[in-house]
Protein backbone atom coordinates (compact mmCIF):
# COMPACT_ATOMS: atom_id res chain seq x y z
CA UNK A 1 0.00 0.00 0.00
CA UNK A 2 1.25 3.41 -0.88
CA UNK A 3 2.32 5.60 1.98
CA UNK A 4 2.05 8.85 0.08
CA UNK A 5 0.55 9.97 -3.22
CA UNK A 6 1.11 13.29 -4.91
CA UNK A 7 -0.29 14.90 -8.05
CA UNK A 8 1.94 17.65 -9.37
CA UNK A 9 1.00 20.16 -12.05
CA UNK A 10 3.20 20.83 -15.04
CA UNK A 11 4.48 24.02 -13.41
CA UNK A 12 5.78 21.79 -10.61
CA UNK A 13 3.47 22.81 -7.80
CA UNK A 14 1.39 20.20 -5.98
CA UNK A 15 -2.26 19.82 -6.83
CA UNK A 16 -2.91 17.06 -4.35
CA UNK A 17 -0.77 15.40 -1.68
CA UNK A 18 -2.11 12.78 0.63
CA UNK A 19 -0.13 10.57 2.99
CA UNK A 20 -1.11 8.16 5.71
CA UNK A 21 -1.74 10.34 8.72
CA UNK A 22 0.29 8.31 11.18
CA UNK A 23 3.60 9.31 9.62
CA UNK A 24 5.39 12.62 9.59
CA UNK A 25 3.77 14.34 6.61
CA UNK A 26 6.49 16.90 6.12
CA UNK A 27 9.03 14.20 5.43
CA UNK A 28 6.92 12.92 2.55
CA UNK A 29 6.35 16.36 1.14
CA UNK A 30 10.10 16.87 1.10
CA UNK A 31 10.65 13.46 -0.49
CA UNK A 32 8.16 14.21 -3.24
CA UNK A 33 9.81 17.55 -3.84
CA UNK A 34 13.26 16.02 -4.25
CA UNK A 35 11.89 13.32 -6.53
CA UNK A 36 10.74 16.02 -8.97
CA UNK A 37 14.34 16.51 -10.05
CA UNK A 38 14.60 12.84 -10.92
CA UNK A 39 11.32 13.02 -12.82
CA UNK A 40 12.54 15.97 -14.88
CA UNK A 41 15.75 14.13 -15.63
CA UNK A 42 13.85 11.08 -16.83
CA UNK A 43 11.52 13.19 -18.98
CA UNK A 44 14.40 14.92 -20.74
CA UNK A 45 16.15 11.60 -21.25
CA UNK A 46 12.94 10.23 -22.71
CA UNK A 47 12.73 13.18 -25.07
CA UNK A 48 15.86 12.06 -26.84
CA UNK A 49 14.80 8.42 -27.00
CA UNK A 50 12.93 6.83 -29.89
CA UNK A 51 9.16 6.98 -29.99
CA UNK A 52 8.80 3.26 -29.27
CA UNK A 53 10.43 3.55 -25.91
CA UNK A 54 8.32 6.41 -24.68
CA UNK A 55 6.06 5.48 -21.86
CA UNK A 56 3.92 7.23 -19.31
CA UNK A 57 5.13 5.07 -16.43
CA UNK A 58 8.57 6.18 -15.28
CA UNK A 59 9.31 3.37 -12.88
CA UNK A 60 11.35 3.46 -9.71
CA UNK A 61 12.75 6.96 -9.28
CA UNK A 62 15.02 6.34 -6.35
CA UNK A 63 15.08 4.07 -3.32
CA UNK A 64 15.88 5.19 0.21
CA UNK A 65 16.45 2.95 3.18
CA UNK A 66 12.78 2.88 4.20
CA UNK A 67 10.88 3.86 1.09
CA UNK A 68 10.76 3.56 -2.66
CA UNK A 69 9.53 6.36 -4.89
CA UNK A 70 7.77 5.73 -8.20
CA UNK A 71 6.85 8.21 -10.90
CA UNK A 72 4.40 8.58 -13.78
CA UNK A 73 3.87 11.44 -16.19
CA UNK A 74 0.81 12.12 -18.34
CA UNK A 75 0.59 13.60 -21.82
CA UNK A 76 -0.27 16.94 -20.30
CA UNK A 77 2.95 16.92 -18.25
CA UNK A 78 1.12 16.35 -14.98
CA UNK A 79 3.22 14.14 -12.75
CA UNK A 80 2.14 11.54 -10.26
CA UNK A 81 4.55 10.49 -7.53
CA UNK A 82 3.96 7.58 -5.23
CA UNK A 83 5.96 6.67 -2.12
CA UNK A 84 5.80 3.05 -1.06
CA UNK A 85 7.04 1.28 2.04
CA UNK A 86 10.18 -0.72 1.26
CA UNK A 87 9.21 -3.49 3.63
CA UNK A 88 6.18 -4.27 1.49
CA UNK A 89 7.94 -6.52 -0.99
CA UNK A 90 4.71 -8.05 -2.23
CA UNK A 91 4.06 -5.01 -4.42
CA UNK A 92 5.19 -5.84 -7.92
CA UNK A 93 5.82 -3.55 -10.84
CA UNK A 94 2.54 -4.24 -12.60
CA UNK A 95 0.60 -3.53 -9.41
CA UNK A 96 2.27 -0.15 -9.20
CA UNK A 97 1.39 0.40 -12.84
CA UNK A 98 -2.25 -0.41 -12.20
CA UNK A 99 -2.32 1.94 -9.22
CA UNK A 100 -0.96 4.70 -11.43
CA UNK A 101 -3.53 3.91 -14.09
CA UNK A 102 -6.34 4.26 -11.54
CA UNK A 103 -4.81 7.51 -10.37
CA UNK A 104 -4.70 8.75 -13.94
CA UNK A 105 -8.35 7.81 -14.44
CA UNK A 106 -9.35 9.66 -11.27
CA UNK A 107 -7.34 12.70 -12.30
CA UNK A 108 -8.99 12.71 -15.74
CA UNK A 109 -12.38 12.63 -14.04
CA UNK A 110 -11.39 15.61 -11.90
CA UNK A 111 -10.34 17.50 -15.05
CA UNK A 112 -13.70 16.80 -16.66
CA UNK A 113 -15.59 18.16 -13.69
CA UNK A 114 -17.00 21.49 -14.93
CA UNK A 115 -16.75 23.01 -11.46
CA UNK A 116 -13.04 22.38 -11.27
CA UNK A 117 -10.70 25.04 -12.64
CA UNK A 118 -7.53 23.53 -14.02
CA UNK A 119 -4.60 24.60 -11.90
CA UNK A 120 -6.48 24.75 -8.62
CA UNK A 121 -5.69 22.48 -5.72
CA UNK A 122 -7.86 19.41 -5.78
CA UNK A 123 -10.20 19.85 -2.84
CA UNK A 124 -12.89 17.36 -3.63
CA UNK A 125 -13.12 14.46 -1.24
CA UNK A 126 -14.85 12.25 -3.74
CA UNK A 127 -12.43 13.00 -6.55
CA UNK A 128 -9.56 10.79 -5.57
CA UNK A 129 -11.46 8.67 -3.10
CA UNK A 130 -10.70 5.38 -4.89
CA UNK A 131 -7.05 6.25 -4.44
CA UNK A 132 -7.00 7.28 -0.81
CA UNK A 133 -9.32 4.58 0.47
CA UNK A 134 -7.14 1.54 0.00
CA UNK A 135 -7.08 -1.73 1.84
CA UNK A 136 -3.66 -2.69 3.17
CA UNK A 137 -1.71 -4.83 0.79
CA UNK A 138 -4.53 -5.09 -1.71
CA UNK A 139 -5.73 -3.30 -4.80
CA UNK A 140 -7.71 -0.09 -4.40
CA UNK A 141 -11.38 -0.72 -3.72
CA UNK A 142 -14.04 0.74 -5.93
CA UNK A 143 -16.35 3.19 -4.30
CA UNK A 144 -19.90 3.31 -5.52
CA UNK A 145 -21.75 6.44 -4.56
CA UNK A 146 -25.49 6.05 -4.90
CA UNK A 147 -28.16 8.68 -4.98
CA UNK A 148 -30.02 9.41 -1.75
CA UNK A 149 -33.27 9.60 -3.61
CA UNK A 150 -33.11 6.05 -4.92
CA UNK A 151 -36.30 4.18 -4.17
CA UNK A 152 -34.52 0.87 -3.97
CA UNK A 153 -31.92 0.17 -1.33
CA UNK A 154 -28.30 0.08 -2.39
CA UNK A 155 -27.27 -3.54 -2.56
CA UNK A 156 -23.55 -3.23 -3.22
CA UNK A 157 -21.46 -2.35 -0.22
CA UNK A 158 -19.26 0.72 -0.23
CA UNK A 159 -15.85 -0.21 1.07
CA UNK A 160 -14.12 2.54 2.91
CA UNK A 161 -11.14 2.31 5.22
CA UNK A 162 -9.24 -0.76 6.29
CA UNK A 163 -11.92 -3.04 7.67
CA UNK A 164 -15.27 -1.42 7.33
CA UNK A 165 -18.24 -2.20 5.21
CA UNK A 166 -20.71 0.63 5.04
CA UNK A 167 -24.03 0.11 3.40
CA UNK A 168 -25.66 3.38 2.43
CA UNK A 169 -29.40 3.03 2.32
CA UNK A 170 -31.79 5.57 1.00
CA UNK A 171 -33.82 7.32 3.68
CA UNK A 172 -36.81 7.43 1.47
CA UNK A 173 -36.85 3.74 0.56
CA UNK A 174 -40.29 2.21 0.54
CA UNK A 175 -38.85 -1.13 1.57
CA UNK A 176 -37.64 -1.55 5.13
CA UNK A 177 -33.94 -1.55 5.81
CA UNK A 178 -33.17 -5.11 6.81
CA UNK A 179 -29.41 -5.11 7.27
CA UNK A 180 -27.76 -3.09 9.98
CA UNK A 181 -25.43 -0.31 8.96
CA UNK A 182 -21.90 -1.11 10.01
CA UNK A 183 -19.48 1.72 10.33
CA UNK A 184 -15.79 0.85 10.59
CA UNK A 185 -13.05 2.57 12.48
CA UNK A 186 -12.51 5.24 9.83
CA UNK A 187 -15.89 6.13 8.35
CA UNK A 188 -16.11 8.64 5.52
CA UNK A 189 -17.83 11.73 6.86
CA UNK A 190 -20.95 12.50 4.95
CA UNK A 191 -20.84 15.98 3.43
CA UNK A 192 -24.62 16.14 3.13
CA UNK A 193 -26.12 15.82 6.59
CA UNK A 194 -29.61 15.65 7.89
CA UNK A 195 -31.86 15.25 4.92
Amino acid sequence: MAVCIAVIAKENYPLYIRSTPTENELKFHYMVHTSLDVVDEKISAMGKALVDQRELYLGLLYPTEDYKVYGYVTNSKVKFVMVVDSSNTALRDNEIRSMFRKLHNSYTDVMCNPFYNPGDRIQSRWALLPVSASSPGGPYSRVRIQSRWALLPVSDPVQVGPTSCVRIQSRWALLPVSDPVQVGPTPVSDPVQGL
Partner: protein
Amino acid sequence: GQKMSLSVLESMGFRVGQALGERLPRETLAFREELDVLKFLCKDLWVAVFQKQMDSLRTNHQGTYVLQDNSFPLLLPMASGLQYLEEAPKFLAFTCGLLRGALCTLGIESVVTASVAALPVCKFQVLIPKS
Protein backbone atom coordinates in the same frame (compact mmCIF):
# COMPACT_ATOMS: atom_id res chain seq x y z
CA GLY B 1 -23.44 42.35 -27.56
CA GLN B 2 -22.39 39.71 -30.01
CA LYS B 3 -18.68 40.07 -29.28
CA MET B 4 -19.25 39.26 -25.61
CA SER B 5 -21.27 36.16 -26.35
CA LEU B 6 -18.69 34.91 -28.83
CA SER B 7 -15.94 35.14 -26.24
CA VAL B 8 -18.15 33.41 -23.68
CA LEU B 9 -18.77 30.59 -26.16
CA GLU B 10 -15.08 30.39 -26.90
CA SER B 11 -14.18 30.14 -23.23
CA MET B 12 -16.73 27.36 -22.77
CA GLY B 13 -15.16 25.51 -25.65
CA PHE B 14 -11.76 26.13 -24.08
CA ARG B 15 -12.75 24.41 -20.83
CA VAL B 16 -14.22 21.44 -22.69
CA GLY B 17 -11.11 21.25 -24.84
CA GLN B 18 -8.93 21.14 -21.74
CA ALA B 19 -10.88 18.18 -20.38
CA LEU B 20 -10.84 16.39 -23.74
CA GLY B 21 -7.11 17.00 -24.08
CA GLU B 22 -6.69 15.13 -20.84
CA ARG B 23 -9.05 12.28 -21.54
CA LEU B 24 -8.49 11.47 -25.21
CA PRO B 25 -4.76 10.79 -25.52
CA ARG B 26 -4.94 8.33 -22.64
CA GLU B 27 -2.90 5.41 -23.81
CA THR B 28 -1.24 7.25 -26.67
CA LEU B 29 2.41 7.80 -26.00
CA ALA B 30 3.73 11.27 -25.50
CA PHE B 31 3.77 13.42 -28.64
CA ARG B 32 7.09 14.08 -30.17
CA GLU B 33 6.48 17.43 -31.82
CA GLU B 34 3.85 20.00 -32.69
CA LEU B 35 2.84 18.36 -35.91
CA ASP B 36 1.96 15.16 -34.02
CA VAL B 37 -0.29 17.16 -31.73
CA LEU B 38 -2.03 18.79 -34.69
CA LYS B 39 -2.50 15.42 -36.34
CA PHE B 40 -4.03 14.15 -33.11
CA LEU B 41 -6.45 17.10 -33.20
CA CYS B 42 -7.42 16.41 -36.78
CA LYS B 43 -7.91 12.72 -36.31
CA ASP B 44 -8.74 11.68 -32.76
CA LEU B 45 -10.32 14.87 -31.40
CA TRP B 46 -12.44 15.55 -34.47
CA VAL B 47 -13.63 11.96 -34.65
CA ALA B 48 -14.51 11.96 -30.96
CA VAL B 49 -16.52 15.18 -31.22
CA PHE B 50 -17.89 15.18 -34.76
CA GLN B 51 -17.58 11.53 -35.83
CA LYS B 52 -15.47 12.45 -38.81
CA GLN B 53 -11.88 13.41 -39.50
CA MET B 54 -10.66 16.81 -40.54
CA ASP B 55 -10.39 16.97 -44.29
CA SER B 56 -7.09 18.72 -44.68
CA LEU B 57 -4.23 20.05 -42.62
CA ARG B 58 -1.75 22.51 -44.06
CA THR B 59 1.19 24.19 -42.44
CA ASN B 60 3.90 26.62 -43.32
CA HIS B 61 6.18 25.02 -40.70
CA GLN B 62 6.56 28.41 -39.07
CA GLY B 63 3.86 27.87 -36.50
CA THR B 64 0.78 28.44 -38.65
CA TYR B 65 -1.58 25.57 -39.35
CA VAL B 66 -4.76 25.66 -41.39
CA LEU B 67 -7.27 22.93 -40.71
CA GLN B 68 -10.01 22.66 -43.29
CA ASP B 69 -13.28 20.84 -42.90
CA ASN B 70 -15.28 20.51 -46.10
CA SER B 71 -18.52 19.52 -44.44
CA PHE B 72 -18.48 20.87 -40.92
CA PRO B 73 -21.26 19.07 -39.05
CA LEU B 74 -22.47 22.16 -37.22
CA LEU B 75 -22.91 24.11 -40.44
CA LEU B 76 -24.13 21.27 -42.64
CA PRO B 77 -27.82 21.40 -41.69
CA MET B 78 -27.97 25.16 -42.13
CA ALA B 79 -27.43 25.81 -45.80
CA SER B 80 -24.87 25.33 -48.49
CA GLY B 81 -23.53 28.34 -50.26
CA LEU B 82 -23.52 31.92 -49.14
CA GLN B 83 -26.76 32.03 -47.23
CA TYR B 84 -26.43 32.66 -43.46
CA LEU B 85 -22.77 33.54 -43.81
CA GLU B 86 -23.00 36.14 -41.06
CA GLU B 87 -24.55 33.65 -38.61
CA ALA B 88 -21.73 31.17 -39.02
CA PRO B 89 -19.29 32.67 -36.42
CA LYS B 90 -21.66 31.79 -33.60
CA PHE B 91 -21.35 28.14 -34.42
CA LEU B 92 -17.61 28.25 -34.84
CA ALA B 93 -16.69 30.08 -31.62
CA PHE B 94 -17.15 27.05 -29.41
CA THR B 95 -15.10 24.89 -31.75
CA CYS B 96 -12.25 27.40 -31.80
CA GLY B 97 -12.19 27.27 -28.02
CA LEU B 98 -12.24 23.49 -28.16
CA LEU B 99 -9.10 23.41 -30.28
CA ARG B 100 -7.38 26.03 -28.14
CA GLY B 101 -8.22 24.15 -24.93
CA ALA B 102 -6.97 20.82 -26.18
CA LEU B 103 -3.74 22.44 -27.34
CA CYS B 104 -3.35 24.12 -23.97
CA THR B 105 -3.59 20.86 -22.04
CA LEU B 106 -1.01 19.33 -24.34
CA GLY B 107 1.33 22.20 -23.57
CA ILE B 108 0.91 24.49 -26.59
CA GLU B 109 -0.25 28.10 -26.26
CA SER B 110 -2.03 29.15 -29.40
CA VAL B 111 -4.53 31.49 -31.04
CA VAL B 112 -7.30 29.83 -33.01
CA THR B 113 -9.55 31.64 -35.46
CA ALA B 114 -12.11 30.35 -37.90
CA SER B 115 -13.27 31.57 -41.25
CA VAL B 116 -16.05 30.55 -43.57
CA ALA B 117 -15.95 31.28 -47.27
CA ALA B 118 -19.03 29.30 -48.19
CA LEU B 119 -21.07 26.98 -46.01
CA PRO B 120 -20.34 24.23 -45.04
CA VAL B 121 -16.64 24.53 -45.78
CA CYS B 122 -14.77 26.15 -42.93
CA LYS B 123 -11.15 26.71 -42.07
CA PHE B 124 -9.60 26.89 -38.63
CA GLN B 125 -6.34 28.74 -38.40
CA VAL B 126 -4.04 27.84 -35.53
CA LEU B 127 -1.23 30.27 -34.79
CA ILE B 128 1.46 29.05 -32.47
CA PRO B 129 3.82 31.89 -31.54
CA LYS B 130 7.45 30.95 -31.59
CA SER B 131 9.05 31.48 -28.18
